[in-house]
């Protein structure tokens, strides 16, 4: 994807990595700050994507967080990000959006690594009724479309991509980091007018292939907003499917799906399995076979409201 933004252009010009490294950001974690060095040039763009992630100024928290920072380095327009919690060395980034998005991944890893009861799940999540519905599936399964279609229809948006799981409570909860949702363009042909208006009204950054939304507080959970998880839905898109069908999913099958999508740098594989077994055991597991997210969104609202 060739996304060029003013922020990226500025970032590309920052070739003096030594100078960039001397500047740090400290963002809030669940227990102490998460330090990022060398990201000052990315700051304006980064905070378009994570506008509500609190920045810390307290020196004590900053000092504690600086022990093992996320490091961003640039040279000749290429960027590398290193993290104590996730292996990103294979990245050689020259795209502003990709740099910021990769950095957000490192921030999420740093966030969940601070608490043994937290993990990250690659999934969409929306409040329907009293609880949080987690939606996951393969790439292109429709997580972002579902999450934003449901938001357009009055359900509170939590994420379209990554949710923090809190396994410390009796019922697992999902926590929002208020990351801006993004949608591929053009929108699906079947997108209705209300949805197109919703996207237009809330678009913040737009490229030919993608738009990033900024949702108002009444539409989306705030940073750290948490809700018990009611159900996990495995999205299975089949363009030949007829009416959307929602069926119960066996726990072992859901655990296999969860294992593909969970990320917790402080868990070994035993820990990841235990987390997935716990999650699939404590909440209802469903599979949604669908052709159009716009039809299937009504199925979810009707079932879970």
């Amino acid at each position: 994807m060739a996304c060029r933004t003013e922020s990226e252009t500025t970032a590309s010009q920052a070739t003096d990595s030594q100078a960039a490294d001397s500047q740090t950001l400290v963002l809030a974690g669940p227990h102490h700050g998460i330090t990022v060095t060398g990201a000052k040039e990315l700051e304006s763009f980064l905070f378009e994507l994570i506008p509500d992630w609190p920045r810390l100024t307290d020196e004590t928290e900053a000092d504690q967080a600086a022990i093992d920072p996320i490091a961003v380095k640039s040279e000749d327009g290429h960027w590398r990000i290193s993290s104590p919690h996730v292996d990103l060395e294979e990245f050689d980034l020259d795209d502003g959006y990709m740099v910021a998005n990769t950095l957000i991944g490192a921030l999420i890893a740093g966030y969940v690594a601070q608490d043994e009861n937290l993990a990250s799940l690659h999934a969409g999540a929306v409040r329907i009724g009293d609880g949080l519905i987690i939606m996951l599936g393969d790439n292109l399964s429709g997580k972002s479309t579902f999450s934003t279609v449901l938001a357009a229809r009055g359900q509170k948006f939590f994420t379209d991509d990554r949710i923090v799981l809190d396994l410390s409570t009796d019922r697992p909860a999902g926590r929002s980091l208020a990351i801006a949702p993004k949608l591929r363009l053009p929108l699906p042909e079947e997108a209705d007018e209300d949805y197109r208006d919703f996207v237009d009204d809330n678009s913040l950054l737009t490229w030919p292939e993608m738009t990033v939304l900024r949702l108002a507080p009444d539409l989306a959970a705030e940073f750290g907003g948490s809700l018990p998880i009611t159900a996990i839905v495995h999205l299975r898109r089949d363009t030949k499917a007829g009416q959307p069908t929602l069926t119960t999913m066996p726990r072992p099958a859901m655990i296999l799906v969860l294992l593909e999508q969970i990320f917790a740098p402080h868990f070994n594989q035993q820990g990841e399995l235990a987390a997935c077994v716990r999650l699939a055991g404590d909440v209802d597991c469903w599979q949604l076979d669908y052709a159009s997210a716009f039809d299937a969104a009504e199925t979810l609202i009707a079932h879970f409201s």
Partner: protein
Amino acid sequence: MSRYRRRPGINETPVEEELFLIAGDSGDIFHLDQLAMSIWRALEQPSSIAELSALFAEAFPDVDPGILTKDLAAAIETLLNGDLIEVCD
């Protein structure tokens, strides 16, 4: 004929009628379907494919013995490839 046994240090996590195993050395996670799980259970005592075939033929009298042996051999191969079982003699 080779006999097989479970490798030591394999961690079991049962979920409903199925089983997840974590290999001790690699930490890799394996999901066993009901047939593979039954073989895993049976290999609590070292057994050959012929012995397993006899055991499973008794449990599933309606299944063609040739198909049963073929399925067992394939499942044993999977367990071997995952370093979950080993040849013991």
